[in-house]
């Protein structure tokens, strides 16, 4: 699992940067082609959701995706699902 901002949807409101307890989102610094400052992701692998969801079998946080008014935040599969690895990483 990996966090992703859909650039075609994000309007640069920065709400994600406000709510993430892990400060994974940082206000963007350069406008994209549409003039939008899309936030940058800072070490998204720190997101407990991404790391632990498989383990606990349910969503652990997800606040960023819920609060994003533009449905721009989503999780995409990163690599084949390897539950064991997660435990070690912790």
């Amino acid at each position, binding site marked *: 699992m990996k966090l992703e901002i859909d650039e075609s949807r994000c309007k640069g409101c920065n709400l994600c940067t406000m709510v993430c307890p892990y400060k994974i989102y940082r206000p963007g610094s350069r406008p994209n*082609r*549409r*003039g939008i400052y899309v936030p940058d992701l800072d070490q998204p692998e720190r997101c407990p959701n991404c790391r632990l969801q498989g383990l606990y079998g349910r969503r652990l946080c997800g606040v960023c995706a819920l609060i994003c008014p533009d449905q721009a935040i989503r999780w995409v599969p990163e690599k084949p699902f390897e539950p064991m690895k997660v435990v070690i990483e912790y």
Partner: protein
Amino acid sequence: MRHEIRFSGFGGQGIILSAVILGRAAALYDQKYAVQTQVYGPEARGGASMSAVIIDDEPILFPKVRDPDTYVIMSQQGFEKYGKSPRDDAVMLLDSDLVHDRPSCTWVGIPATLSAKKDLGREIVANIIMLGALTTATTVVSGPALEKAILDSVPKGTEDLNLKAMRRGQELGIEGGSS
């Protein structure tokens, strides 16, 4: 002579205010006739907003801009929606950092937003920079008329900032890297 000027950009850039100021400059201080119109609507919020001014020496009957001779474009989407097919002898002022494409007609690139932020510390006056540039890069409006119209229209306490922006625009209008 009839001039048709079209402004476009995104919501919040002050596209409509620009047109209002220009119209006022022409009608009240250049002693011409002017009609200002615009595109309304929530759809305009996300996308490109547009406003227009017609300036003429005679009373203006048909009030809609159909084939502008002057453009002020402040966003890529605005360019795509409202600036794509100008007539050959038109002049287009572009915010050079926000508009990525370039038109077939004569154009003048003005780094308005960048300059507003960097030189004046307030992005919000980018539109005034563009208006300033209009006085030097085109003949649709005179500098003194624009100055008075700006002073009429901006909030108390921001007059200096706005006049600075206008002056900066006038400089950029002369320097402006043209096609």
